[in-house]
């Protein structure tokens, strides 16, 4: 599953030190440290916010994954959009997303944030999916998704972050 758990091949330095020294690419080190402490921006809007709060409470503990709720966008890495986004709120979501510092990720939690949810048909004021205004990395379906489903979404996000190569120059 995650390749950082296997010790990398150290070549000339093999068996020269006790298991205190690991040599790896700087890329992997950076993406590993980013993935294991994603501080989330608690953007709870509606019913999914209650499940997000329940996920952060004692039974399904989000803090063991390294996630701490922050209320300011400047201090957060992941924005979990939990709940229905309306037209009135869509402009503010965009603004808050722009205020977050890079690297930033977005998790669309619940069916309302994914595609409008149960309000897709006659909801004149409902934004049909938050990916119309911000780019989304992980979609967590459900109405509302169980806290375990949210945790699975976060784990998928962690896998995605691990695969990034932040220092590699991208050509093309």
């Amino acid at each position, binding site marked *: 599953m995650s390749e950082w758990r296997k010790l990398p091949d150290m070549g000339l330095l093999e068996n020269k030190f006790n298991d205190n020294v690991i040599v790896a690419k700087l890329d992997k080190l950076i993406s590993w440290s980013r993935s294991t402490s994603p501080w989330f921006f608690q953007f709870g809007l509606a019913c999914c916010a*209650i499940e997000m709060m329940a996920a952060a*409470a004692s039974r399904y503990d989000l803090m063991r994954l390294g996630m701490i709720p922050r209320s300011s966008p400047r201090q957060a890495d992941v924005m979990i959009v939990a709940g229905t986004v309306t037209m009135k709120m869509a402009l503010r979501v965009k603004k808050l997303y722009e205020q977050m510092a890079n690297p930033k990720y977005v998790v669309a939690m619940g069916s309302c944030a994914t595609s409008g949810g149960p309000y897709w048909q006659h909801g004149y004021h409902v934004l049909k999916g938050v990916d119309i205004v911000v780019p989304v990395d992980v979609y967590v379906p459900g109405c*509302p998704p169980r806290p375990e489903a949210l945790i699975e979404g976060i784990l998928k996000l962690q896998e995605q972050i691990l695969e990034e190569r932040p220092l590699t120059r991208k050509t093309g």
Partner: protein
Amino acid sequence: MVLNIGPQHPSTHGVLRLQVKTDGEIISEIKPFIGYLHRCFEKHCENVTYEQVIPFTDRCDYLASMANNFGYVVAMEELMEIKVPERVEYIRVIMAELQRIASHLLALGTFGLDVGAFTPFLYMFRDRERILDMFEMTCGARLLYNYMWVGGLSHDLPIGFVESAFRFLDYFEPKIEEYNNILTYNKIFIERTADVGVMPADVAISYGVSGPNLRGSGVKWDIRKDEPYSIYDRFDFDVPVGIGEKGNLGDCWDRFNVRLTEMGESIKILRQALTQIPKNGDVHQTIPKKIRPPKGSIYKRTETPRGDLGFYIISDGSPIPNRLKMRSPAFTALSVLDEIGRGWMLSDVIAILGSLDIVLGEIDR
């Protein structure tokens, strides 16, 4: 100075914007801006059938979905003159009272969080999870149940529900004493909330406030006792009223105490209902195949954890409602914020907002 407590803020009441005019630290005017969660509930109700309205009512007040379902179903059954079997009535009351305890736990937990106490929040969520386990055992969902249908219920109680409910009540009853020790009679909590945000009774009635907010101001009004619906007139319970124990009558502490004591009263109702519930009965027996109410309109109120929930339903004989208006208690509770929040400091306004126990899904529908 005009300050904006913006639509996104850590007090977990939802997306609410308060435009606050301050003079130094003292507030001179509060203007709430709502509508950030307006999901067109009433427009949906005019386009879907009566059965399909029930999941939408769940999502309005998402902290007390059973209570919303109950209000709608009671109004529809009165409009259509359906009489449901005894077992259905008892199960509905049991679910509604469990939901009341769960909702009050969350309200009190987040109120403690607003005032600065983090531990009661975790303790109350731990107890709330046990209630959600029982709901999940019955209908499969943790938060939004779609459980009470017009004329019956969606699922019967599973085997072992009554025993596990008794076990939960025996576990939970001493916890109220524990919450009193941690929070209610805590010196810092009293300093923060006693005498803050006093709401006189005539102001409360004029602004249409109801439920624990009104009872905290000394008015003994509870729909379950004064205009009883379903089988609430068979149970023996008390209606706690604020008496101004730690300050003026109608302050935040009174409202907090009323909610805490109400949980104890719900435990009483639950014990009686769980012993009296008939063992046999079909919950799907009186569910009509097709819901076509007679022409007419009805306005019916029920008591949710937040206050009086009113449903005004106008039917024109077709399977789709002509107009369905939901009068939510949190709407009226928020409108009184300007009146009782003036003259206090900014952190007191956060405490007052927490004590009013609003849910934005219900206000904006």
